[in-house]
């Protein structure tokens, strides 16, 4: 079992080394406008894409904890943060009021049919990606435990400086 796990880990590690760009996928803005994720990411600085849902408590904890960092990262490093909600169409009505009530300042997009989530092979939310200014996925993380926002902020700074993330 241990050998298999090691082999699997190596296999996935190997795969994740290849630079990935996002597959073209249509999302919706809160106003109901369709937009391709490729057109939503930043070309001038790092982009953080955080997958979340209104019913996912760790997701909301992560976005709330990260919001203090996000303000500085946007100002100082030109970072852009996209909060992609995987709520279905019915629940997506709850997204805008929740975002306001949490006082978040993120660009929120809706992945109502979970197409982007599936295309990226994401199992569960929360799931966070960091892209460099060339649009390549350079860092991924699944799940949230307190303190992960510190790691994420460090990663964004490294990516903004053109370095490979050390975590």
């Amino acid at each position, binding site marked *: 079992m241990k050998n298999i796990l090691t082999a699997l880990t190596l296999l996935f590690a190997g795969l994740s080394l290849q630079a990935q760009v996002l597959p073209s996928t249509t999302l919706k803005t809160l106003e109901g406008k369709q937009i391709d994720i490729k057109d939503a990411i930043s070309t001038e600085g790092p982009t953080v894409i955080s997958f979340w849902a209104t019913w996912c408590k760790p997701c909301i904890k992560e976005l709330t904890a990260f919001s203090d960092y996000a303000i500085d990262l946007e100002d100082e490093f030109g970072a852009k943060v996209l909060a992609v909600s995987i709520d279905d169409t019915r629940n997506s009505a709850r997204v805008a009021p929740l975002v306001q009530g949490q006082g978040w300042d993120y660009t929120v997009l809706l992945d109502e049919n979970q197409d982007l989530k599936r295309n990226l092979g994401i199992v569960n939310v929360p799931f966070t990606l960091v892209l460099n200014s060339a649009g390549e996925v350079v860092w991924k993380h699944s799940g949230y435990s*307190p303190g992960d926002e510190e790691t994420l902020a460090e990663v964004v700074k490294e990516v903004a400086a053109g370095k490979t993330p050390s975590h």
Partner: protein
Amino acid sequence: MNKFSLSLLAVLVGFTAVAQSQETFGGQLHGNFQLDGQLYLRDEAIDPSGEFFPDERFLGQGYANFVYTQGDFSGGLRYENYQNVMLGFPEGYRGEGITYRYLQFKQDNLDVTVGSFYEQFGSGMVFRSYEERGLGYDNAMDGVRVKANPAKGLYLKGVLGRQRFYFEKSPGIVRGLDAEYNLTEFMPKLDSLGYRWTIGGSFLSKYQRGNDPFLVLPENVATGGIRTQFTKGPWAVQAEYAYKANDPSSDNGYIYKDGNGIIVNLTYSKNGLGLIAGAKRIDNMSFRSDRNGSTIDMLINYLSPTTQVHTYALPALYQYATQINGEEGIQLEANYKIKRKTKLGGKYGTLISANYSVVQSIDKQFVDPSNDTLRTLQGYTSDPLARGDIPYFHDFNFKVSRKVNKRFKYTASYLNLFYNRSVLEDGLGDEAIQINPSNQKLLNANILVFEGLYKIKSKHYLRGEAQSLRTQDDRGSMAMMLLEYSVAPHWFFSVQDIYNYGNPDADQRLHYPLASVIYTAGTSRFQLSYGRQQRGIFCVGGVCRVVPPSNGVSFSLTTSF
């Protein structure tokens, strides 16, 4: 077990080889893998007769998804394996195989998929095919889907196929069309005035052979829906209406009554304030691609709940499940962030939220069973303006979250729940309750939850929860304590105990301890848990399954790439 892992590994290696050879053409491979298992231990306190103790002792299941994208093309598949399916999941998952595979071609205005796909029209009242792996819910379509954008602002979808039924397909065929028109894209003037307006409509029909010795069954059953979304500044309105032609089914007792549903939502979001007011009414809207289907099998549409989802362990014991044969309800919710650096808000600001949701039966006047023909044709009559008299559920809750200083933040919640166990757990119909209302099993509970998060030092956090559920009903009062210690970014330790001190049966005043360790590295996560779990109902999006009590060691491995 080993054999299973090895065979999966072989599949993975095979795919990696393909992926890497394709990589030179600029393609992308993404995917994920999950493996769960539990070693069950015999526990006579929670399961005296051993009825929930599996013969296999160890149950394990896993799956892997692969999606390959190259330019305008993509394709994917999922392999699933259940040896045997874990307790609480639908028994239909038995064995192994490739349950999901598709090819897709996508260019500017056209998107064609053949094979398996997930899709939905509007809110899903007419059609929604989706998966919820944690629930064991998967009604993926197998067939053809075409999406087109023939004119600015106009989006068309067409679907044709059959739905997944575990390792088989549903007997009925599903055909549907949906059109959505974004008027704002079509009329830039609306946009410049700040209006966003979308309208949509859908039509869907299912075909299933009907050869019943007594009933002339409709083989083609049609549904249709219209919807709109309107936004102006902080205000938004969403409304949807759906109609279903007569569809005698095991859900509705084989009556020929038609069905309908309406959902309306009004929201306001601005300056730290979010408000939601919603109302809905559904009447006889169960719709499956097999009229004899039950539980979560082969549902064509999706009727979402208008209640809040609770994630704390004790309130989550009594979650609402949508009653597809008829219900009406309203929901009011407010979220507000009191600004930072104010007297009330404190240094960091304070979040407050309140929610009230209530659901009850719709008005139903049942036709006297002695009038056999009318009874079969009509079943009951319902006045949409009259109130139903059977309460199903209500939830009032209030929550305050506040960051006190750099190291400490807390959330305090109060909930008042009412839960009709006869309806939500035993599935008792409205007519049976109307005949004998005093026979209902009801639950009233008051719940308090306090949660605190303390930062010990950079990347070291301690989180605790204290919960109290007080009730005279069902299993009686319970208390819970939880402690978590996390060392970002890799380690996570958790211990918890639920004590059912108020159980009316003194022998069942038990402790339910559970300890877990989680290791996360990037996108991979390994979890190991040991402990006792009480019987419960696990729900996602208003769809629920019953989880039996268990004791044992469980593990879960997930990764994505």
